[in-house]
């Protein structure tokens, strides 16, 4: 074949070699077709481990009870025992080391998430005692009268 055929061909071969070299260095070794096949499983395997190592912020109520078991009896008297501690006290993170104290949400807006009265006949919302936040002691925080650990009015 003549030179005018070979010269551009060499250029193309050179570009392909360069791309393959770049790919060999840039694409991690664990990238490829994994368990779910080419369509759904084409990925970098190490990323699954990356996600597993994502730091968790919430512990759970059992973790809180390890030290704060003095609150357990009071909580068990009322209906609020079903609410996890961290919903109001915030995520435990590495408490008690960091942070030493948790920022407690005592706001009215937290209580009315459940206790603002809505008419929801095909939902559990209807079974929860509710108030109209605009009429029920507006401007006051709920915790000034109600004990959030045991909100029953008889024990108040």
């Amino acid at each position, binding site marked *: 074949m003549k030179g005018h055929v070979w010269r551009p061909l060499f250029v193309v071969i050179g570009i392909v070699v360069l791309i393959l070299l770049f790919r060999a260095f840039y694409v991690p070794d664990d990238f490829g077709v*994994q*368990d779910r*096949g080419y369509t759904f499983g084409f990925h*970098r395997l190490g990323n*699954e481990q990356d*996600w597993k190592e994502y*730091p968790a912020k*919430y512990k759970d109520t059992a973790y809180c009870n390890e030290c704060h078991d003095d609150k357990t009896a009071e909580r068990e008297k009322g209906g609020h025992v079903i*609410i996890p501690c961290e919903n109001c006290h915030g995520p435990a993170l590495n408490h008690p080391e960091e942070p030493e104290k948790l920022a407690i949400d005592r706001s009215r807006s937290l209580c009315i998430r459940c206790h603002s009265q809505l008419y929801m006949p095909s*939902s559990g919302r209807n079974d929860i005692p509710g108030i109209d936040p605009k009429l029920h002691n507006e401007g006051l925080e709920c915790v000034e009268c109600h004990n959030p650990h045991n909100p029953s009015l008889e024990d108040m």
Partner: protein
Amino acid sequence: MKRRDFLKSTAVFVSGAAISVSALEFIDPREVLAAKPDLRWGFLVDTHKCVGCGFCVKACKTENDIPLDANVTRTWVERYIITESGETFSDSPKGALNGFTSKLIDQNESGMKLVPDRDVTQAFFVPKLCNHCSNPPCVQVCPVGATYSTADGVVLVDRTWCIGCGYCIMGCPYGVRFFHPVVHTADKCTFCYHRISKGGNTACAQACPFGARMIGNLKDPNDPVAKTVLTQRVAILREEFGTNPNVYYLGLDKEVR
């Protein structure tokens, strides 16, 4: 070229091509899955139990570092109000980050709608999250292999590999994907992979006081989620898309989209 030469070179080419094709290994995902039958994550939402408090949304956003005030969320709760005349109204203010505290239903451009209690025939809440489909359309459209399905059935996004093209956000029929405002890649629910793979619960399920959300292993017949899925009347969202979701709903209504 003589006829003899042509036939010879054709035979050589065909046999050579046949060998190289047979060298490629064809992987059937079903075969691989059958070989690993021990774990497949599934999620159960009981819409009867949901009261629309939105603690799940708050816990999810905090746990997974999604800015609270950003208009994106990995999970959200929808309110449905069905009236006597058959009309359906639904809304999800801020994804229910602060719960449902008002009777006014946000109808976007037509403003806030108040349905009088006496007109309401059905009213309920439906929590939504990524369905972690067995045939995820979002994964098929990813041009770079940044989003994928793990062997245990969780759909994840590789943040170092995502180029942010947004195909997956368009491809998801459930609208669960969004562009992360801080990381600047596609983002979605991970079933709290960092928690469940260490034996924990998802942040949303743990925060739910009423047990409306549960995660479990669909391959374990003694698992409470698997038991419910096998024995109760459960439904999935948008079955017609053929995505085979792994999030099951108890008490789903036909009005829920």
